[in-house]
C-alpha cells in the first residue's frame, strides 16, 4: 500500500492531538461559566485528534487523490537545521564566530556552491551583520 500525503499528515496530527490531550487532561477544565485553563486546550486537541483521524481515513480510502509520493530533501533539511542549531550554540562566543560558521554551514548546504565564492560570502555576511546590527540598530551583542 503506497503511503499518501494525507495518510502521513493524518498520523502526524493524531500524534500531536493525542499528546496535547494527554497534557491538557491535567489542567483544570472549569465550567462554561468560568472556563479553567484546560477548557480550550481540551476542545482544540480533541478536534485535532478527530480531524487527524478523518484525514488519515481519507488518505487510506481516496488513494487516487494526491497520490504523488512524499519527497523530503534530507540533505538541505539536515544541513540547514545544523547551520541554525550551530549558530545558536556558537553565539555565546560572539557575532563574528557565529556568523562565519553560519555562512560556511549554509555554503555546504548549497548544491550549487563554488569554493571561490566562499571568502566573499563570509566578508559580505559579516559586513552586513556589522552594518545592520552594530552600526544601524546598535545592539549590545559582543563581537
Amino acid at each position: 500500500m503506497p503511503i499518501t500525503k494525507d495518510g502521513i499528515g493524518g498520523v502526524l496530527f493524531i500524534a500531536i492531538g493525542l499528546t496535547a490531550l494527554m497534557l491538557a487532561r491535567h489542567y483544570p477544565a472549569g465550567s462554561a461559566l468560568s472556563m479553567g485553563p484546560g477548557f480550550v486546550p481540551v476542545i482544540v486537541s480533541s478536534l485535532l485528534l478527530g480531524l487527524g483521524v478523518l484525514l488519515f481515513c481519507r488518505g487510506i480510502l481516496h488513494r487516487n487523490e494526491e497520490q504523488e509520493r512524499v519527497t523530503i530533501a534530507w540533505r538541505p533539511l539536515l544541513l540547514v537545521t545544523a547551520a541554525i542549531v550551530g549558530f545558536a550554540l556558537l553565539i555565546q562566543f560572539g557575532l563574528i564566530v557565529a556568523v562565519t560558521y553560519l555562512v560556511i554551514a549554509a555554503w555546504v548546504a548549497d548544491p550549487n556552491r563554488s569554493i571561490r565564492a566562499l571568502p566573499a560570502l563570509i566578508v559580505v555576511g559579516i559586513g552586513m551583520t556589522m552594518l545592520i546590527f552594530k552600526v544601524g540598530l546598535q545592539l549590545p551583542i559582543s563581537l
Partner: protein
Amino acid sequence: MLDGLILGFQVALSLDNLLYCLIGVTLGTFIGMLPGVGPLVTIAMLLPMTYGLSPIASMIMLAGIYYGASYGGSSTAILVNLPGESSSVVTCIDGYQMARKGRAGAALAIAAIGSFVAGCIGTFGIALFAPMLGRAALAFGPAEYASLIVMALVATSVLVQGALVKGLLMALLGILIGLVGMDVNSGAMRFTFGLPSLMEGIDFVVVAVGTFAFAEIIRELRPTKDEPPHQVVAVDSLMPTAEELRQSVKPILRGTGVGMICGVLPGIGATVSSFASYILEKRCAKDPSRFGQGAIEGVAGPESANNAASQTTFIPTLTLGVPGSATMALMLGALMIHGITPGPNIITERPSLFWGLVASMWIGNLMLVILNLPLIRLWIVLLKVPYSWLFPMILILSCLGIYTLSNEPMDVLLGAGFGIFGYVVLQLGFSLAPFILGLVLGPMLEENLRRALLISHGDPRIFIESPISAGFLLASAVMLALLVLPAVRRSKPHLEQEA
C-alpha cells in the same frame, strides 16, 4: 474624514516617515524582484528590526514592503514568466505573452498604472469605510468577536490550497501553539514541558521566521535538475499605445472594485481577487480567445485587483483586529509587539497611527510608480542574483533577528524546530496561512469565548441569539457545507498559498 486625512498627511509627510516609506517600498520592490524570496519571508525576517522604531514608522515601513513586493512580483511575472508571489500568478498568463510579442514595456506600464489607480481608490476606500466599520464594530461584544474569529479561520482554511481538513488542522494547531505558556487568567502553565523559556509563550516572531524563512530556504535548496536560466525579455518603449490605454480603462476600474471587495472579506485576499478579476475580464471581453495570447485586459484587471485588495485588507486588520491573510497576521503581530491592540477604537485612540498609515499608502504607491517605471532597467539586474548569494544572508538576518529578541539562544533552536515542522507540513501538502492566523487569533478567541460565556452565565446560546454572531457562524457553516459537497469541491480552483 477630511480632518483625519489632513492629520495623516502631516504624519506621513514628516521627513522620518517619508524615509521609512521609501525604504519600505524600495526594499519591497528589491525583494519582489529577487527570485525565491516572497513578501512573507521578508516581513518575517525584518520584523525584529522594526522593534526600535516607533509604531507608526514600523507599520509604514512594513506596509511599504508589502505592496512594494507585489509591484516587484508583477514585474518578474511579465518579464520572466515567474510570479514573485502568489497574487501575480495570473499576470504571467497574458503579461508574459505580451512581453514575448515585444510589448513588455507596455505591459509593465499598464500594470503600474493599474496598480496606482487601484491604490488611490483603495486608499480612499480605507479612509471612507474603515471608520464606518470601526463604528459598527463598537457594537461587537465578546460573542460577536469569538464568532468573527471562527469565521476568519474557517474562511482561510476553506480557501487555501489543499483539502479543507488540512486547512482546519493547521488553524487548530496554530491555536494550540498560541496557548503555550502561562494562562493569563489562572496563572497555570500550559504545554511548557517545564521549560522556563516557554513560560511566557512562544514568541510570534520565532514561529513566523521558522515556518516561513527557514522552511522556504530548505525547500529552495533541493537539488535542481539543471534548469535553464530564465530568459529575460528586453524592455522596449514604456509607452502603451492609445489603443492599449483605452482597452485598459474599464478592466482597471472593474479590477479595483473586485479587489476592494475581496480585500475586506476575511480569508479572501489579493490572490483570490486577481483570479476573480481575470475570470471577470474574460467574461466581459468581446473576443475571449485573445486571453492567453497577450490580452492587455488580462494584465490590467488582475494587477489592479491585487493592489486594491492589498490596501483594503488593512480595513479588517486595523478596525476589527482580525487579519484576513498570513501577511496581515504578521502585520498584526508587529503592532502587538509595540503594545497596540488593533480594534474598533484604534481610529479614535491612535488617530495619527491610523491616518498616517493610510496617507503613507498613497504616498508609497506614488513612489512605486516613480521607482518602477523609469528605473525598471536597474531592477532587472536583480533578476540575475543567484540564490547561492541570497540565502546565506537571509539565514544570517533570520537567526540574528530571532536571537536579538531576548538574547536567548533557545529561541533560535525553537526557530529551527519550526523550520523543520514548516518544511515537513509543506511537503505533505498543508498550507501555512491558517496556521499563522490561528496562532495570532487563538489567544483572542479564548479570551472572547471566556468573556462571552461569563456574560451569559455559561449558556452557549449567546452565540446564536445575537444576530451578528449568528450571522458569522452561519456563514462559516455555509462555507464548510459547500465544500463538503463533492461538486463544489471539484470545481474549486487551485489557488496558491495566500501571501
